[in-house]
């Protein structure tokens, strides 16, 4: 089965690589971060070669990670720290860094918390968490748990107390954000291989993709630490030996139900259906992308929600929009409740939580909650 190429956008500068793609729901489009430090957004609803947003000098060098924070805000990071950009003004509203001004390599955002991971500087590879509502100071720091570049960070989609990080040191760490200090917060360490990406593929399952193109699934431990249970990781090993036409893996997308991989020598890109519930890969129904990005590496792939469209970005500097021949099931999980970072505030927050449960949508606008009394009378 093949996808059909519907549209493509070229880079304005030569030798520019598209590194990350994110969906901008409010703008009906996508935003791309590049190796030349630029952030550029294009409309999907109304295809045009003209960008809807252009921030050519968002960063001084290659952008290592890109995330969406709310309707109008994105976060990106590079050698010049973490920057939050307002898409309406194209202005840098906040710049965050650490005392060493280390290069930030990874980001994730959930429920007002922004986490950033750095490269190794001396003996320090640091993970910092900020509350975007008051970003003057970090709310959490984990500086002793990795000894090499932190390449990926993931907040747990439903169990909001958990934050996960992966590094080139081969460890995937899971931290409990409700614990007061780092020693207590380190909940689990998985000693795997230099980590390219890791995801909570199910509530208690962690999928890890290494830089050597190996893939493994591990159990997220419970807090019964003394219980001697033999964990059961599922190790696929080197997937280049298992999947057809696989020379490198772009990434695994557990919530979108596929893994994307490519073969430069054959100018191929493939989409392999993946079911995170039974961890099965359907090699009989691989989807091909004719031409892919030529012989260049595809760096990111993005599903456009509620459509059969998918977007790819590569080292050829091109962004391509494709129409998939089939629909993929969504394995998106519900929104997690905000985590209680301070134990003292727990009781106060409990009441607030009950109100927050009524909100089925994500808070895109930075509005303040009105006092509790008035909310009680609002319609559901």
């Amino acid at each position, binding site marked *: 089965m093949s996808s059909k190429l519907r549209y493509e956008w070229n880079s304005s500068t030569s030798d520019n*690589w598209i*590194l990350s793609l994110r969906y901008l729901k409010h703008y009906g489009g996508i935003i791309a971060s590049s*190796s030349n430090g630029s952030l550029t957004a294009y409309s999907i609803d109304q295809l045009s070669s003209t960008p809807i947003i252009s921030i050519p000098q968002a960063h001084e*060098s*290659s952008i290592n990670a890109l995330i969406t924070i709310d309707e109008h805000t994105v976060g990106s990071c590079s050698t010049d720290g973490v920057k939050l950009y307002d898409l309406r003004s194209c202005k840098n509203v906040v710049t965050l860094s650490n005392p060493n001004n280390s290069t930030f390599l990874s980001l994730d955002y959930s429920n007002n918390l922004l986490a950033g991971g750095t490269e190794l500087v001396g*003996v320090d590879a640091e993970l910092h968490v900020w509350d975007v509502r008051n970003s003057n100071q970090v709310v959490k720091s*984990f500086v*002793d*748990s*990795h*000894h*090499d570049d932190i*390449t990926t960070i993931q907040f747990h989609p439903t169990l909001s107390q958990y934050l996960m990080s992966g590094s*080139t*040191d*081969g*460890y995937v*760490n899971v931290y409990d954000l409700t614990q007061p200090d*780092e*020693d207590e917060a*380190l*909940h*689990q*360490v998985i*000693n795997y*291989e*230099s980590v*390219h990406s890791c995801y909570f593929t199910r509530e208690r399952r962690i999928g890890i993709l*290494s*830089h*050597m*193109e190996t893939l493994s699934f591990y159990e997220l*431990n419970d807090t019964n*630490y*003394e*219980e*001697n*249970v*033999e*964990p059961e990781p599922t190790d696929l090993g080197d997937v*280049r030996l298992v999947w057809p036409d696989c020379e*490198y893996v772009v990434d695994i997308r557990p919530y979108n139900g596929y893994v994307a991989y490519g073969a*430069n*020598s054959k100018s191929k890109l493939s989409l392999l259906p993946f079911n995170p519930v039974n961890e099965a890969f359907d090699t009989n129904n691989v989807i091909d992308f004719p031409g892919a990005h030529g012989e260049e*590496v595809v*760096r990111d792939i993005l599903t456009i929600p509620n459509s059969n469209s998918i977007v790819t970005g590569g080292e050829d500097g091109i962004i391509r929009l494709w129409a998939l021949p089939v629909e993929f099931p969504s394995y998106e999980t519900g929104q997690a409740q905000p985590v209680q970072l301070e134990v003292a505030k727990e009781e106060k927050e409990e009441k607030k939580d009950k109100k927050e449960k009524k909100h089925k949508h994500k808070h895109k606008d930075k509005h303040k909650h009105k006092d509790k009394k008035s909310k009680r009378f609002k319609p559901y």
Partner: protein
Amino acid sequence: MSKITSSHVRENVKKLLEFSTETKKRNFLETVELQVGLKNYDPQRDKRFSGSLKLPQVPRPNMTICIFGDAFDVDRAKSIGAEAMSVDDLKKLNKNKKLIKKLAKKYNAFVASEVLIKQIPRLLGPTLSKAGKFPTPVSHNDDLYGKVQDVKSTIKFQLKKVLCLAVAVGNVEMEEDILVNQIMMSANFLVSLLKKNWQNVGSLVIKSTMGPSFRIY
């Protein structure tokens, strides 16, 4: 298609071994390194080139390993002559960072009973991770000696800001055949991970710790 032939590698291995075992023999066991010079690779934006490789024979035999074991594995460790610590021994450290750092410095690597891995972060905190020595798990079904050998035979490689990568592939007391094989294995594996494969390789050199370099590509 590999761009290096085993006969060419063998030629150079012969010269390398001759130098280190005859011409100028040192009074310590020299390690043999494979040095890969990359080209057309941009460390700032290219995908990471990092991981580990398990070789058939231990390149550096003097690695020290300690086993964190449950009762079963502590016994097994004793029977293979390996040093071991029980959960009680680890509890005695009382999460004291200084003591754990000392422990981390004492050994090159650690292996822990799979059933204990869950407890390790609680017992020892992040100090071992910071030292890069979080243990490798071993299950009761695994051969403990085999697992220890695996850990000793695994070499890590990583490319950072410079375009040269060096990995230990053997030592000067190894047999020529084995050394040639390990060099070929390592070179071919590393090249397979590069996006343009051999087009990303500028040079391949083998070298003993104190000896001269021999270019094989």
